[in-house]
């Protein structure tokens, strides 16, 4: 009996290790070759002399930082706006009962599932007409389609988790309804809000379709820019690796921070982790 257990455990762990290899090796290898000089690229595998020349070439000699900053500007402001407009909306959906409430909520959710291409093609034309093409504002506004539904649905779940009686108690204590919201409720959803915001940031940061078609010269996010590094006919593989590594870094770091609330965020509140 015990032998069976040991064998089955070994098999389980073995399979998991295989998957871990599949999932993580590409990332590991990418970081690895970002430190490999072009000369060593062809004839060495794992053992080589690491160098920073690729980082130097990409970060200091190209516009990489500009792309990085552009991504930050667009993603951060997009999330901020979604938070400011979305948190009250989430509260309204959680607490109030009004006509067509669920219809409204699902409409907001459906924005997330709309094909990006469907939005982008007409938007391309409209933006050109009203001068929002290739602007920060234009991108930030489109990004709301990604960030706002996520925030609203996830934060709604967190509000619903708070017992209504706490609000009643605060009212009886002498606080008006917006003071109840600010002083009693917001502190309670803060962890969830932070995680949802970080997840929304990751989605915004990773977006490719919108900046591809709605911006190009003046505003360029890192996802679109990275493709440039591949598209060029160079054989500077190390530099491509650098571009990939640096753009993946913020998302991975944030992912570590929001582990606890990840499930809620990814499933839009449908699954409580």
């Amino acid at each position, binding site marked *: 009996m015990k032998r069976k257990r040991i064998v089955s455990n070994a098999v389980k762990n073995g399979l998991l290790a295989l998957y871990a290899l599949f999932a993580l090796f590409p990332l590991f290898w990418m970081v690895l070759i970002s430190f490999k000089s072009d000369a060593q690229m062809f004839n060495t595998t794992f053992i080589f002399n690491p160098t920073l020349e690729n980082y130097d070439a990409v970060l200091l000699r190209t516009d990489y930082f500009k792309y990085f900053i552009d991504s930050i500007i667009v993603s951060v402001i997009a999330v901020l706006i979604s938070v400011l407009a979305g948190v009250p909306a989430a509260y309204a959906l959680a607490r109030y009962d009004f006509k067509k409430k669920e219809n409204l909520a699902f409409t907001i959710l459906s924005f997330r599932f709309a094909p990006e291409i469907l939005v982008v093609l007409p938007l391309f034309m409209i933006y050109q007409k009203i001068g929002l093409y290739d602007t920060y504002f234009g991108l930030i506004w489109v990004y709301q389609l990604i960030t706002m539904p996520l925030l609203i649905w996830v934060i709604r779940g967190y509000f619903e988790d708070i*017992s209504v*009686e*706490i609000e*009643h*108690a*605060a*009212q*009886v*204590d*002498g*606080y*008006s*309804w917006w*003071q109840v919201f600010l002083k*009693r409720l917001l*502190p*309670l959803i803060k962890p969830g809000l932070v995680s949802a915001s970080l997840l929304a940031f990751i989605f915004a940061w990773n977006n490719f379709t919108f900046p591809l078609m709605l911006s190009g010269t003046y505003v360029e996010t890192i996802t679109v820019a990275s493709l440039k590094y591949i598209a060029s006919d160079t054989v500077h593989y190390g530099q491509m690796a650098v571009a990939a590594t640096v753009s993946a870094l913020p998302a991975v770091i944030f992912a570590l921070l929001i582990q606890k609330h990840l499930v809620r965020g990814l499933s839009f509140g449908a699954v409580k982790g």
Partner: protein
Amino acid sequence: MAKIEVVNVTKRFGKFTALKNINLEIKDNEFFVLFGPAGAGKTTLLNNVAGIQIPEEGLIRFNGEIMNRIDPAHRNVAMVFENYALYPNLTVYENIASPLRSPLYKKDNATINREVHRVAELLRIDHLLERLPSQISNGQKQRVAIGRALVRDPNVFLMDEPLAHLDAKLRHYMRSELKEMQSSFNTTCIYVTHDFLEAVSLGDRIAIINEGSIIQVGTREEVYYTPCNEFVAALVGEPEINLVDGRLFVDNGKYYVETLEKGYLLPLPESSGIVRKLVDSEVTEYHIGFRPNNIKYTFEKKDGLIRGTVYSFESIGNKAVLIAKVGEKYIRMIAPNDLKVKLDQAVYVELPIHKAIFFDAQTTNFIGTSDEAAIYRLVQEQLSKGVQ
């Protein structure tokens, strides 16, 4: 301190009517108990008095002033919620201090410190002040919730089953603590419970509520000795009152009731006026209520007693409930814990017809009681309160 009036209040939630035309007048400084089974509407009523909900019809008045339009913060009420409703991210100290930091009832830090400690010592939670709600037991949470209410000097205390989640021993202790505090409160208090013992031990007056309507309002004696219908009679009293069918029987000018078995007659006492009441009511089919603690029994055959068999014997603490099957009915009686008894043993029951309550069998309404002593006490009570 405030007189609270609930006038014709109806509260609906969609198609469901939670409160049906409620009328209550709660006197200043009164400890008023709202008693009824689960789902009766007690919490809804408290919420309407507090201003958390607004009734669809009717008015709420504090000292004559209409409060319908006024939000809970401005009504100056203090409420203890059934599920405590403590702020999870604040310490016990901050939870209790919360009302004293609100813009409406703000006090300076020195006063807050003094008041919170005073209340915490009273409730014996002063050693917990730096803890979070997640770090204390249910009983302690309950006391923090009560403390948050006690730091206030409100128009009225609203308490929603504040002892419901405590274990028996703690509940007993808190009940006596509350009773002691009650006298020094000097504030109106509306107290909700579904526990009969709590209701009678704490309340100046008790309102019995069921399915959204007030059934009866009265002192503990009134609802115990003169319950307005069978529902109230069954609700108030532990173990539950026995209700048996009976018929009026006249023989030679003497009045009897025939009950339990054909031909078993109990003579009605002349002096208590019950005969007059029964005759005047023109009802002849009754349900007669006998409280278990008034019923006597013996295991030897005796004249005038009716024969039954022992159905069950169960201890309920410092006494026991003996149930006898008499005919088709099961009669509950109080017996000492150490009584030696065998199932199906013959037992002879003496129904205390001189301490019985009579209900109309059709309407279940109260007709009268034969308990002279109780009637006398109730009359005295009315007289001492003066003309209301």
